[in-house]
């Protein structure tokens, strides 16, 4: 969903994908660098739409949605309200190119293996994928005194992320709605959230230990804090960016305040709320590593710490790769949600 990411966060590739300009004239090779005459930009949107979001552009969307913990850079802004940002290619076309997405990871993997095996970089520093795979299998099949099992660690981490995300995400959503719907709400909530969003999560660890001890609570609260910010910012700006003309039309149809919120404001803000959801999930995973610095005795962050203590880089790589996979999975979940919740936009895309 390239149209779902605030344009301020986009890499150049994705930004090009959302502009109905040059790609339109190069339907057969959207993944290559394209330079066309300026005249191509004049085509109407529908004609050029089928060629816009090539597979390679789509692939960069989920990763760009994530920002480092404690630095949620999704400031409220016009984001994706421009109609041009909603254009994409028909689903059938997009499906055909989906397999393109695995090419670049495969190339990296093969290159990594070659570099490690050739001794260009010592295997101590960069264990080859084959070693990492072997370590992963060992971690899954045997319970090690130092690391426990990989699946055990995943479950522990998953629980922390899930609870932290639900608590923080719900708080961010509710606060965003409160701030978005009224000036009073904005003036009371927004300054606090703007202060919180600049706090580095690492810097909060000592304070959280003093306040909440070293158990599960400070870890979950750190994740919740991180996850609340993007959902808050995107909900707030999503609500503020709802077309006032639609709200006015609703008013002329005799909608009451509650009906206007339910039928017009919240559905109108939903695309951007889903962007916030995706970013919040990303931050929840990133905050997990920070949170598991606090006296953890299980979890993925713990495995990384242990790997560091025992100078076992391949264990660290296994944990990092698990992060990548879990991140991809959560992102796929949000995509699924988007496809269902934003079906009305697919009406436009498939037309």
């Amino acid at each position, binding site marked *: 969903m390239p149209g779902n990411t605030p344009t301020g966060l986009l890499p150049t590739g994705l930004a090009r994908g959302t502009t109905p300009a040059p790609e339109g004239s190069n339907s057969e090779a959207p993944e290559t660098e394209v330079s066309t005459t300026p005249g191509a930009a004049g085509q109407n949107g529908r004609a050029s739409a089928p060629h816009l979001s090539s597979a390679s552009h789509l692939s960069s969307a989920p990763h760009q949605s994530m920002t480092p913990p404690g630095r949620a850079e999704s400031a409220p802004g016009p984001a994706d309200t421009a109609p041009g940002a909603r254009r994409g290619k028909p689903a059938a076309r997009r499906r055909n190119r989906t397999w393109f997405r695995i090419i670049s990871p495969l190339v990296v993997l093969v290159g990594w293996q070659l570099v490690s095996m050739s001794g260009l970089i010592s295997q101590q520093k960069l264990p080859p994928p084959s070693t990492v795979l072997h370590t992963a299998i060992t971690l899954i099949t045997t319970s090690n005194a130092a690391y426990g099992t990989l699946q055990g660690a995943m479950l522990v981490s998953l629980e922390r992320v899930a609870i932290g995300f639900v608590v923080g995400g719900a708080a961010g959503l509710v606060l965003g709605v409160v701030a978005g719907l009224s000036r009073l709400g904005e003036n009371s909530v927004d300054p606090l959230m703007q202060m919180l969003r600049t706090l580095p999560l690492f810097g909060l660890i000592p304070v959280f230990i003093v306040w909440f001890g070293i158990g599960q609570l400070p870890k979950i609260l750190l994740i919740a804090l991180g996850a609340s910010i993007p959902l808050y910012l995107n909900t707030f700006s999503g609500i503020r960016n709802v077309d006032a*003309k*639609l709200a*006015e*039309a*609703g*008013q*002329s*149809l*005799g*909608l009451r305040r509650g*009906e206007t919120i339910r*039928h*017009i404001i919240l*559905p*109108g803000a*939903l695309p951007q709320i889903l962007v916030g959801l995706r970013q919040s999930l990303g931050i929840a995973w990133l905050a997990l590593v920070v949170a598991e610095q606090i006296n953890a005795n299980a979890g993925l962050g713990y495995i990384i710490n242990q790997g560091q203590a025992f100078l076992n880089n391949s264990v660290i790589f296994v944990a990092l790769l698990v992060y990548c996979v879990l991140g991809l999975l959560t992102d796929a979940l949000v995509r699924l949600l988007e496809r269902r919740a934003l*079906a*009305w*936009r697919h*009406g*436009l895309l498939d*037309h």
Partner: protein
Amino acid sequence: MAPRTAGSLSAGAPPADTAPHPAAWVRGLTREFAGRRVLDELDLDIAPGEFVALIGRSGSGKSTLLRALAGLDRGVTGDLGVEGTAAVAFQEPRLLPWRRVWANVGLGLRTGDAKTVALDALEEVGLGARANAWPLTLSGGEAQRAALARALVREPSLLLLDEPFSALDALTTITMHRLVLRLWAHHQPAVLLVTHDVDEALSLSDRVLVLAGGQIAFSERIDVPRPRQRDHPELAALRTRLLIELGIVTEG
């Protein structure tokens, strides 16, 4: 009469000195934007079932008056009332993209069979086949017809049209003119059509008004039977007069 904020529609009795029960009446309506007086003590009556066209130059306050009658402007002072309900079709269709076409038409209807009523209205504007479509897949003309259906389904006694054809191409506009006249004849609401198109006003309305200087500067009945030929002598004469009133051509 004490000035009051006329933000909400009142179905109160009209002033005693006017014809009995106009569909809408306005007395001493004033609206200022940043110190600039757009409407200045404006008076207007619209009879039941009367088709009134309001023309004026850009920024003359046409839409401001319409918005006041629709109850969408809380910043006006003066007095106004609408007998029954008012419904608006805006310049843009303003359909909610996340609701199917029929659900847009039925939006805000308090009756139990809102869907049936909405489907009937869509059938009437010739859009029955697209009732289940998403609004973003409609053409400009289709969307504007859906917006008309959404306004008419409320059985308004006053239909407010705010330049609803200005974004359509010429051929679609002709079709829409016929549709509006047919719907008007069938439902018989009073209509206030805000437009900048003199010919549109001449071919559709019972009475054409020119808004200038914050007041109704010119008002003329048109008794030519419909459908009207563009080159009808009476209309041609009135066209010249209107262009003079609008300051587009000078007299003589």
